[in-house]
C-alpha cells in the first residue's frame, strides 16, 4: 500500500468465515472447535463452582448458577412440557441453552469474536440432536404407529379435510422443524457477524486507507454505527439461544402431549 494511492476495498463475504487450522497439520482444530471447547470448559467450571459448596445462604456464584438453572427449568421447560414430565428434560435443555448462549456471545467477546454457529455444521448437529430427542421420546411414549398418528392427524379438523391436512402436518412437524431450527440459528449468527465485518472493515478502509478526508469522516460514523450494531447483535445472540431451546422444549412437549 503506497501512501496517497487509494487501494481497492475487498468487502467481507462467505470467505471471511474460512478458518485455517490453528496448529499446522491438525486439520480439524479450527477456531470454532476452540471456541466450543472453551465454552464447555467455562460452563463446567461455572456450574461446578456454583453447586460445589451449595449452602442455604448462597454465595454469589451459587446464586448466579441457580438463577440460570431456574430460568431454564421454570420459564422454558416447565411451561412448555408441563409440570408432570418436565424434570427429565431439564438437564438437556439447560446444557443446550448455555452451550448455544456462550457460543453465540463469543462473537461479542473481544479477541474471540467468532460465533461458532455461523458454521452451519454446528447448527445442523444441534438441530438433529433436538430432532432425535423429541421424536424418540414421542415414539417411546406412544409407540411408532401411535406417534405418527399423533404427529400427522391434527385435532379439530373435520374428517373430509383430513387427507389434505396429513401431508402438511407431516412435512411441517418432521421435516421443516429441524431445518428451520438449524437455519434460523445459523443465518442469524452468519448475518450478524458479516454485518459487523462490513461496518468495521469498511470504517477501517475509509479512515485509514481511502486517503480522503470526507470519507474519513464517514468512516468514523461507520465505526460508531458498528458499535451500535454490536449491541444489537448481543441481543440477537441471547434471543436466538432462547428461541432454540424454547422450540426444542415445545417440540418435546407436543410429542409427548396427550390428545388435545
Amino acid at each position, binding site marked *: 500500500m503506497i501512501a496517497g494511492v487509494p487501494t481497492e476495498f475487498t468487502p467481507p463475504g462467505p470467505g471471511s468465515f474460512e478458518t485455517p487450522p490453528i496448529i499446522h497439520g491438525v486439520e480439524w482444530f479450527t477456531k470454532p472447535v476452540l471456541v466450543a471447547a472453551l465454552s464447555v470448559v467455562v460452563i463446567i467450571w461455572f456450574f461446578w463452582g456454583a453447586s460445589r459448596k451449595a449452602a442455604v445462604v448462597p454465595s454469589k456464584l451459587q446464586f448466579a448458577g441457580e438463577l440460570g438453572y431456574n430460568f431454564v427449568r421454570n420459564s422454558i421447560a416447565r411451561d412448555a412440557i408441563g409440570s408432570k414430565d418436565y424434570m427429565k428434560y431439564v438437564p438437556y435443555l439447560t446444557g443446550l441453552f448455555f452451550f448455544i448462549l456462550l457460543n453465540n456471545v463469543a462473537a461479542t467477546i473481544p479477541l474471540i469474536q467468532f460465533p461458532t454457529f455461523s458454521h452451519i455444521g454446528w447448527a445442523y448437529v444441534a438441530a438433529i440432536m433436538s430432532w432425535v430427542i423429541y421424536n424418540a421420546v414421542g415414539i417411546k411414549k406412544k409407540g411408532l404407529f401411535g406417534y405418527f398418528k399423533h404427529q400427522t392427524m391434527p385435532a379439530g379438523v373435520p374428517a373430509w*379435510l383430513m387427507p389434505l*391436512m396429513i401431508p402438511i402436518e407431516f*412435512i411441517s412437524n418432521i421435516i*421443516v422443524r429441524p431445518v*428451520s431450527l438449524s437455519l434460523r440459528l445459523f443465518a442469524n449468527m452468519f448475518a450478524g457477524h458479516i454485518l459487523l465485518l462490513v461496518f468495521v472493515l469498511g470504517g477501517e478502509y475509509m479512515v485509514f486507507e481511502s486517503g480522503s478526508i470526507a470519507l474519513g469522516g464517514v468512516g468514523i460514523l461507520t465505526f460508531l454505527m458498528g458499535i451500535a450494531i454490536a449491541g444489537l447483535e448481543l441481543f440477537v445472540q441471547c434471543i436466538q439461544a432462547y428461541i432454540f431451546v424454547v*422450540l426444542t422444549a415445545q417440540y418435546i412437549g407436543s410429542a409427548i402431549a396427550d390428545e388435545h
Partner: protein
Amino acid sequence: MSEHKDPKPTPDTSGDGWRVLSYLIGGVLVYGGIGFGLDRLFGTQFLVVIGIVLGAGLTILLLNFRYGSKS
C-alpha cells in the same frame, strides 16, 4: 422457590409464532411440490402456482382449526 404450585396453568405460547411459520412453509412446500411435479409430468406451467396458493390456503385453514378455537 416453591416446588408445588404452578404459577401458569395455561400452556406457554411464546413459541407459537415460530411453529405457525413452520406450518406455512410445510403447506406451501407440499402442495407447491405436488404442483411442480405435475407441471413436469404434463409439461404445463400453471399447476405450481395453483399448488402454492392451495397449500397456503389449506395451511391457514388448518391453523384456524388448530389455534383458532382455543379461546
